[in-house]
Every structure is written in C-alpha cells, then in structure tokens.
C-alpha cells in the first residue's frame, strides 16, 4: 500500500496550516462568506442541513488498519461516535464543529490522510475497483495509476475552479466494478496488440438530473500519455464547459452540446501542443508508486477446516455464499463486510466496528481494507482457513449480515435526514425495504438485485444504475418516490427506465415488494436474475406488478 513520502507529508501539513488560517481570515473578515465557501469545500467541509459535514478522502478506497483506527478516533473525539462510508469510497463525519476541523485535518495527516478536493468544482477523489489487486478477473492493479492521478490532481493550479465537479474512476478488470461509464472520465486498463499497457478513455458520463453514459474518446491511450491527455480533456472542459447554469455545467453536457467529435478535436489539439511539457518524470514516479503496491506475502495452507466448518454451520455457510468473491490466489478469498444490517443506516459504522475491522485486517487480512462504492468494507486478502475466526469476530460486532449483492444491500444517499439538497428521505426507505424483505425471508431466493435510492434529482444514490432505482421527490410538500428499472453500472451499463407515476412514502415499500415477488413468478428459472428477466421480458409485466393491483398509485 502507498505510504506518504516526505513530499506528501509536507504538502498535507502546509495545506492544514493554510486552512487553519483561512478559517481565521473568514472570522476576521479578510474573506467574505462567498470567497470562503469554495475554499472550505476544496478542503472537504460542507454546510449541511443541521451542521457542518466533513468528507474525508479515502483515495481509491484503500485503507490500512492504523488509518481505520484513526477514523474511529476522530468519530469518538470530534463527532458522535460513528462515520458514514459513501458511494464515492469516502467517509463523512456529520457533526464536526468548525473550530475543530483544522485539528481533525491534522489528525488525518498523522496517518497520511486528508480531506482535500472531496468537494468543490475541482477533480475529486479518484475511485477504483474495490477488489483491485485481489480479484481473479483482473488484468492490472488500477491503484498505482489512481495514486498518480491523486498526486497530479491535488492542488492542480489550472483546475481548482472548473465549471463544476469532476470525477475520475478507473478499473483494471473487464468486469467493471467501478461504474466507469457513469463518470466524467472513465479509465479502463487494457493492452494493445503489442501487449503494451494503456487505457481505453471514456468521457462525459454522469448521473444527476441528466444521466448519460460515457463515450469512448480514445480506444487506446499509451500509459505514458495519461497525464497530458487527462490534462487536455480538463483544459478543453475548463474553457468550453458552461458556467451560466450549474445544472448544465458538467462535462457530459459539454460533450453532448458540442458533439463528441468537436470536443475530441479540441482535446487532441491541446494534447499535441502540451505533450512536450512532460519529461517522463511522472512515469519514473509511477514506477516508485507501483513498487509500493507489491502484493503481500500470500501463504499456502490447507482449507479443510474451513470446508468442514462450512458444512456443519448453516449460518456461516449462508454468509460465505454471498459475502465472498473469488480471489486470484488459491486458498484466498475476498471478504465483503456488510454495512447494511437490516434496518440500519446503509454505510454507517460505529467507532467500535471500525476498530474491529481494523484488527481483523491486521490479523487476517495482510493489513488491507477497502471501501466499496456500494458502501461496504472489504478485506481483500483473507485466507479461507481464517474465515471462521473472521466471521465470529464480525458477528460479535454486529457486522456479519449475509446480504452482499442482495435486496437489502441497498445504496442510499443521506437524503433529507442530513442533506440540504434532498427533497425526500432515503435512509428510512432503505431501512424499511430491508426490514420487510427480512420478514419475507426471500432475499436469498431472489438472488442478485441492486436497489439504489436517491433523495433528490442529483442522484447521489446512483438510482439511474440500480436494477431497481428509487428517486425521492417533493410533490407539493409530500414525498413521492419514482421507480426506474433495468439500470446497470457495470460493463453492460444502462440507464434505468422510468416506470409510471410515483408512490407516496407509505406505499413505496409495498410497491417494491410487489415488483420483487412478481419477478419470482415470471423468471425463467432460479438462475435468471432480476436484471436478466427485465431485459428479456421488458417493462410491461413489471409495470403490471407496480400498478396492476387494487392498491392505487399516486397520480402525481
């Protein structure tokens, strides 16, 4: 894993000192509120509905145990004892006081972390496949590239005041777990016919009120051209992106309004002009970064005890059936720790739970933790013989919910319980759906199903790419939930189709129940997933499940 060098350390310390002084200068009037706002945002500090919120970057979702413990410490000392892991692989603290924030940032710097560019109209935290360097299907580890991009984008002088925020995601595996087509820039690590490493570069994806899938702007970009090419895209966007309407300011609109060909011509002109400014030192730095991501010393051990325990313990077996993912090394597995206990707030973890996960990573996980965009925590390298012990410790900490990828593994934005932009609650809807399906006891029968809930049109809950998407709106002061179906965030990406009218809060859970039970009726067999059934049968039968019963839908 990457550890800060002297340069990184000096940088974050100087940045904390700058922010400390910016807070003071806001108070003494040197900075107006309008001027202070983007400065605090680019240091991760939001003003929410009830309080400030600090969003801490977890670059490419990778954490070591001491970093996780420090997050627990921050949660206890300066917040209410818990943190919220987000769809951007970050963690949010919902209740910090402004005067404490510089001290929190110092505490983060102590473990090589920061909150830089987790907000604001700049390049945000770069996200990556949460199974990086562990998944069996991987071509290359995306994290060294993501770290290079972190260094490149951090305090980039040209791009701190873009038209709008800018998100980059990268995957090194053909199975896209990083939702690259829903990002401003998506990078897929590929090799050309000569076997040289490079990237398929996608541009102009995004969710929000105008969901669009990214388009290919270069089908093969040599690895050494990455930073100049990304810089050319950003430069073209900085100049051409709209600044008259924040809802039309993302690069997806720039690409759409100018057309991909014209936008690409602009990018290529900039790239040709600026490429020579890069001496190749960045590639030397990349080699140093790659060395830090060397694989751990995997061990060779029998897995008989694991198999035996699995055979005799049904609860353990159910957990292993859904919370494990194939590892590239024999005898190893990838463990997903669900932060989606039925009825709990998706993505929340207490300080105690964070420490338990840190201890497990240290003892059984080669010192690595990941945060997934699906708001769960991953132990990427666990030997199967250690699974009974890991599972027992997780159970004690209330972290052994066996629901990864199932109905109750719901992505939900903070919604109206926290967020100033929200038009409806998300968390309570997620909690009620999860609780309902636990009562029905059909979750494991239903199988893979992604439900994603956003509490407003900005789509932080990724509802457009949920197999079932739920969008909470405000209809004349009453919460109303619209349903979309057939969305997909993977390599077969699709934007979900809107069904009919929405449902009020007290009816949406029943509507989802009818949808899922209806699917069980019409699926070809137990192997056909919800998404496959929707793609085969089309929306009509599902509309029937939603609206065809005597339960009346809201006509709003």
């Amino acid at each position, binding site marked *: 894993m990457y550890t800060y060098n002297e*340069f990184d350390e*000096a*940088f974050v310390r*100087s*940045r904390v000192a*700058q922010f400390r*002084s*910016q807070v003071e*200068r806001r108070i003494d*009037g*040197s*900075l107006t509120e309008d*001027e202070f706002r*983007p*400065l605090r945002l680019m240091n991760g500090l939001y003003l929410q509905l009830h309080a400030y919120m600090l969003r801490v970057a977890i670059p490419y979702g990778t954490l070591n145990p001491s970093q996780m413990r420090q997050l627990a410490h921050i949660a206890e000392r300066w917040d209410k004892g818990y943190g919220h892991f987000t769809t951007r692989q970050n963690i949010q603290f919902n209740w910090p006081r402004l005067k404490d924030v510089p001290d929190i940032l110092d505490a983060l710097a102590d473990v090589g972390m920061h909150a830089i560019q987790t907000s604001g*109209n700049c390049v945000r935290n770069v996200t990556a496949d949460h199974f990086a360097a562990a998944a069996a299907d991987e071509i290359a580890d995306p994290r060294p590239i993501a770290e290079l991009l972190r*260094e*490149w984008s*951090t*305090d*980039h*002088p*040209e*791009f*701190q*005041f*873009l038209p709008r925020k800018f998100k980059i995601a990268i995957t090194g595996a053909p199975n896209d777990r990083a939702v690259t087509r829903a990002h401003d820039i998506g990078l897929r690590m590929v090799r050309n016919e000569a076997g040289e490493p490079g990237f398929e570069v996608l541009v102009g994806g995004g969710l929000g009120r105008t969901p669009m899938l990214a388009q290919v702007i270069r089908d093969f970009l040599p690895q050494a051209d990455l*930073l100049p090419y990304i810089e050319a895209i950003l*430069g073209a966007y*900085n*100049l051409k992106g709209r*600044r008259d309407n924040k809802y039309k300011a993302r690069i997806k609109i720039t690409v759409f309004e100018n057309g991909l060909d014209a936008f690409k011509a602009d990018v290529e002109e900039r790239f040709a*002009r*600026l490429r020579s*400014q*890069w*001496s190749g*030192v*960045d590639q030397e*730095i990349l080699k140093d970064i790659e060395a830090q991501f060397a694989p751990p010393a995997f061990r060779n051990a029998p897995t008989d005890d694991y198999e035996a325990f699995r055979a005799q313990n049904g609860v353990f077996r159910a957990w292993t059936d859904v919370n494990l993912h194939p590892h590239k090394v024999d005898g190893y597995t990838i463990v997903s720790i669900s932060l989606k206990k039925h009825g709990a707030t998706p993505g929340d973890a207490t300080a105690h739970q964070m420490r338990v996960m840190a201890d497990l990573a240290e003892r059984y996980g080669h010192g690595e933790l990941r945060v997934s965009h699906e708001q769960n925590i991953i132990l990427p390298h666990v030997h199967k013989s250690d699974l009974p012990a890991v599972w027992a410790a997780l159970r004690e900490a209330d972290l052994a919910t066996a629901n990864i990828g199932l109905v109750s593994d719901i992505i939900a934005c903070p919604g109206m319980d926290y967020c100033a932009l929200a038009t409806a609650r998300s968390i309570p809807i997620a909690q009620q759906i999860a609780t309902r399906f636990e009562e029905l006891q059909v979750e494991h029968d239903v199988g893979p199903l992604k439900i994603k809930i956003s509490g407003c049109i900005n789509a932080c809950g990724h509802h457009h790419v949920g197999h079932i998407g739920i969008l909470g709106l405000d209809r004349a002061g009453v919460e109303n939930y619209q349903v979309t179906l057939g969305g997909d965030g993977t390599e077969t990406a699709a934007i979900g189709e809107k069904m009919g009218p929405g449902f009020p809060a007290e009816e949406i859970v029943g509507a989802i129940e009818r949808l899922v039970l209806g699917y069980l009726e019409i699926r070809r067999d137990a192997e056909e997933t919800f998404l496959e059934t929707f793609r085969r049968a089309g929306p009509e039968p599902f509309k029937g499940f939603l609206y065809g019963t005597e339960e009346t839908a809201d006509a709003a």
Partner: protein
Amino acid sequence: MTIIVTDTGFRVDDFPGVIRPLAEIEQIQEGDGVEIGPADDPRALVGVLGQVALIRVRFPAFNDGRGFSHARDLRSFGFHGRLRAAGHVLADQYAMVRRVGFDEVEIDEALAARQPEDQWLARANWRDNYYQGRLRA
C-alpha cells in the same frame, strides 16, 4: 489606483504602455499591452505575441477559472512577455496564478485593504509543495 502584487509584495503599476482590448488587435504596436476576458480565445493573439509586451487576463469573478487555462495556453503559444491576472483574484489563489504562468496580479484598493500584503506574501513560496512541478520536472 490599482495595486500590483508580485512575490515581493505590493507595488504601483509601472507598465508604461497602453493596454488595448482584444477588439483593437489591428492597432497593436510594439510594446503595447492587450487585455482578454474569460470568454475570449487567446488563439486570436498568436500572430502578434512577439510585439505585445503585456497581456492582462481579466478575472471578473474569482471562481471563474478560465483565466488559469488562458495563461497556460498563452505560454504554450510562446508568449514570453509580462502576464498579468487582473480583477477578483484572492490571496489564496496567488500560488495557482503563479504556477500557471502569470507574473503578477492586479487588484483594486478595496481588495488590497481586505486582503493586505502579508496575506499575499504568505503564498509567495508557491514553488514549494507543488505536485505538478514534481511530476513534470
């Protein structure tokens, strides 16, 4: 009176020439300055860059970042003269301004009173802690 900010602090404007708007590009003489705004295309200046002594890039609002790309573009077109960021530029942006190729910042008296010289000098060490400088070398 406007104030010019450089790495050594505040000073008065000593540019002796006239600064023309981009619309008067045809009349530019050796030693003149020219001004562009965020929406202008600096490529319009490529033919006269050898004559122009100063380019003033206007920042009507501190959060309109187009001027940063204009500076980098003008340098990439081969402009070696004086490059000035003018208008609503914050002391907090001084390092960014210098890093993209500006030589100096022009601010008005009200901004200089609100953000006095020491706040700008605090960022005069803009070569330090600079990821971009390290990656390009």
